[in-house]
């Protein structure tokens, strides 16, 4: 197998699998849909966390923000939002098929673009922070947003909002959201692949390796950081909008801003797959999702303990991740050239630290 076909293999596996699996196992459609959500979250996290070295714990903020922006758009186009959320449960509001699709389409777009706006605003606040301060600061933003939305009556407060009902059969609904999530995840992957290839990828890698030197070389670090964050935010926001509609009911702490579940999962998935690589997050998300589903099914009650242990073992003993480990073991299969002199020098450096 030459290098080209080896590179094409994962694309084929995921594309064929993505189309064939839900057809073959329609009962697991929901799990497959969530898998694509996970892949999207991991890929977009890796733009900052892996390639730029800014480990955010608050990307989930955009997930919830997108979800709520989409919900408000969907409802606000045809009804008064405050009235709708206040009469929660009492008044059943019907949306026609036309209204539903228009609302969903516009809502997803609004979610994506408003998240770009949020990314720019919050980028201004958090990008002055470095290292652990950045991680904790972004975590704080996500937690604060969840608490704040929970107290905001206009969007339903802690009670949440139920979204317009899909006008059609339940099976069609599952397939509809599967396709949308699949397309969105592929788009996010291709976008990430596209930006890593060009000058932008080199610039954010330079920021990861040494931000001061990158600045010294005339790279507008702040601009690159904000753009990188805006790209993740755009996709995560749209994904949140889709996810909210798929669940059908949104609520601030468990679904919209699940900081300690999805917010941490995306980091763990990237670490598991190998952060800073193109395919690492995708593979990590797949393995992680399988692990999660298995533990949730067979170890109920202990699933969180298993998850915490996985994080610790992953971070402590297997930091390079699956892709990193494969690249270390068979560098020639990835077309990587190992310079022994350089490697030896690096080991010296490690020792002298």
């Amino acid at each position, binding site marked *: 197998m030459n290098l080209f076909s080896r590179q094409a293999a994962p694309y084929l596996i995921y594309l064929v699998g993505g189309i064939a699996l839900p057809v073959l196992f329609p009962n697991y459609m929901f799990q497959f849909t969530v898998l694509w959500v996970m892949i999207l979250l991991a890929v977009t996290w890796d733009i900052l966390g892996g390639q730029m070295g800014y480990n955010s714990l608050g990307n989930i903020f955009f997930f919830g923000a997108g979800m709520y922006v989409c919900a408000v758009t969907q409802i606000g186009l045809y009804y008064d939002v405050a009235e709708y959320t206040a009469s929660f449960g009492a008044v059943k509001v019907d949306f026609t098929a036309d209204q539903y699709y228009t609302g969903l389409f516009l809502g997803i777009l609004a979610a994506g673009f408003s998240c770009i706006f949020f990314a720019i605003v919050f980028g201004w606040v958090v990008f002055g922070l470095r290292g652990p301060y950045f991680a904790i600061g972004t975590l*704080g933003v996500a937690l604060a947003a969840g608490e*704040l939305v929970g107290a905001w009556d206009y969007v339903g407060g802690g009670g949440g909002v139920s979204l317009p009902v899909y006008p059609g059969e339940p099976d069609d609904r599952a397939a509809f959201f599967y396709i949308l999530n699949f397309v969105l995840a592929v788009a996010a992957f291709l976008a990430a692949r596209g930006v890593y290839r060009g000058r932008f990828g080199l610039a954010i890698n330079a920021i990861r390796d040494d931000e001061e030197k990158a600045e010294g070389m005339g790279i507008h670090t702040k601009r690159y950081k904000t753009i990188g964050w805006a790209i993740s935010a755009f996709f995560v926001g749209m994904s949140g909008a889709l996810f909210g509609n798929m669940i059908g009911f949104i609520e601030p702490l468990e679904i919209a801003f699940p900081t300690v579940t999805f917010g941490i999962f995306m980091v763990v998935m990237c670490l598991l797959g190998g952060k800073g690589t193109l395919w690492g997050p995708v593979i990590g998300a797949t393995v992680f999702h399988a692990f999660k589903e298995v533990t949730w099914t067979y170890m109920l009650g202990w699933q969180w*303990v298993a998850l*915490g*242990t996985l*994080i610790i073992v992953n971070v402590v003993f297997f930091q390079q991740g699956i892709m990193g480990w494969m690249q270390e073991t068979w560098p020639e299969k990835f077309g990587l050239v190992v310079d022994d002199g350089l490697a030896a020098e690096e080991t010296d450096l490690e020792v002298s630290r």
Partner: protein
Amino acid sequence: MIDRWIGNIDLLVIAPVLNIQLLLDGVFVGAIFALAAYGMALVWGVMNVKNLAQGDFVIMGGYIAYVLTLQGIHPIFGLPIAMVVMFIFGWGVYRVIISRVINKDMFTSLLATFGLALVVQQLLNLAFGPEVQVAESHFEINSIFDGLVTVANIKVISLFLAAVLAILIVSFMKYSRMGQAIRATAQDPRAAMVMGIDTERIYAFTFALNAAICGAAGALISMIWVIQPFFGIGHSIRSFVIVTAAGLGNLPGVIVTGLGLGVAELYGGFVLGAELQQFTVVGLLVGVLVWRQIQQKRHRQVVQ
């Protein structure tokens, strides 16, 4: 919503006695926050590990005191036992996890301790369930100002105990051989090693000491407030806010910020409503980080 907030502020102006209640309670819990934050600053300063499991250690100490209360041991005597148990636990955690991430980048230790936090809180949840618990001290509750302000005796005792512990720890760090070695390691681990200090042992001891401090803080929290398996992250964030605002190795700063945070949190809960009390803490965290950044902006030159 805003009307309600203004109404609550009016209430504080009309009945100034309420302020005294809030201030007193804020100081009582704030002293404990400061204790846990000091432990975090210690570990952070000595080995550059940001312990996100700090709050879960606190809650763990609280549950140790709670379990001892069920066995008929008064929580005040449970406190030293919680400290000893947590010291051993901290030593074990250092050996198994922390010693392996100490030389890696900072995010690694952050995530590793986060995983630890997850394991601890879930194990506590499996063992004790998600109900809110209190270690009952059966002490009297005093009223002052004609019964408008209540002060439980246990709160006064806990403040006193926190102060005693703080003095003990600080004098230990200052005068004992071990304390000096810890401070030397914090300043320059390499030089300390050359001077014959076993830095690995110092790290293990420091982490264990931090866990013991958390155990004491948790026992106090379980006496005067409530404990619940998932309250850990709140305590971690509080410690982080205090350390970030006060800086490392600034003991008076940690105490003042800790008390201030306790008061601010109670005021936030009173004025904004109980559902936003947690938000006050997180909001303060974001606020402190933004403020630090504005403060440091003049020292930094950025390509624009």
